[in-house]
């Protein structure tokens, strides 16, 4: 197995999934964001977004807080320090993969 391919297979697949990557990228620059913002920015359906958030919460990457505003449920999400570290590691890994692929192409 080539080194690039091994690097790619080693990436955190929980974050690598495009919808979850978008969610984590958004939360990486926010202290907290609500469900409506994530829904709006990701373009996912409510059910889909909920499912991805639950997976991220189960992995300890995202903290979900459910409250009420009047009688309306209100959900906010925050990236945990574990999630932040995982995102940083993922970005670093992808940078390495892209860098190696680029340098190999240039070397041809």
């Amino acid at each position: 197995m080539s080194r690039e391919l091994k690097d790619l297979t080693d990436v955190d697949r929980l974050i690598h999934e495009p919808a979850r990557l978008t969610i984590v990228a958004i939360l990486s620059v926010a202290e907290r964001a609500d469900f409506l913002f994530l829904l709006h920015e990701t373009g996912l359906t409510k059910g889909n977004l909920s499912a991805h958030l639950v997976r991220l919460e189960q992995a300890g990457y995202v903290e979900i807080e459910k409250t009420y505003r009047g009688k309306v449920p209100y959900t906010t999400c925050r990236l945990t320090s574990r999630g932040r570290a995982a995102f940083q590691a993922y970005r670093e890994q992808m940078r390495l993969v892209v860098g190696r692929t680029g340098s190999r192409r240039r070397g041809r």
Partner: protein
Amino acid sequence: MLESFQTSLYNRPVWMEGKMEDPIQGPIQRTRRYWYEDGVAELAIGGLFLAIGLVIWAQGAVPEGSAAQAALGIAFPGVIIGGMLLGRRLIPSVKARLTYPRTGYVAYPQPSRRRRLAVVGVALAVAAAVGASVLALQPPPSGALVLLEGLLLGVLLIILGQGLTRFYLLGGWSLILGIGLSRLPAPEETMSGVLYGLTGLAMAISGGLVLATYLRRNRMPPQDTQL
């Protein structure tokens, strides 16, 4: 025509539409820019600049040494501090009514102590450089202060704008105003007031257009939109 102009003001240049988005940088950048999504902050900052411009202009217009000039001198820091305090209350409250129910809420992290110190350091360095230049060029060339103010306002707007096209335009407008006004044979105080006033007016117009576009594009969703 107006639609394409508003699109470029609202989001990104029309020529960039359709380009593939970076899966990480795209959402990060959009989240950072979300604060300016509705134009409310621009309207508020524009209003503050307009008020500052009016006070500076009035100081130049009233007779030298008069009670009115003294009163305006005392009112000037009050306008800046009061305007900033009012903005800190007004912007979140307007956003809570107009923006958060439509497109959601984002809380941004407080800048770290190191970053705050760096910002204060840069501001002090710029102020010291400007002060030293003014002292070195005694008597300062006519219009130099207005030119510097235009330049500083322009740089400030570009830094504040998170790479949004309309903030580059506003920064450019401020710089052009600074160059143009510094060449006019009028008292420097008056020109300085006009510079702040017209920059504030441009910001308020830009903010108003962005807000109108935002409200038209984003209708209030039904009450059960949350999880």
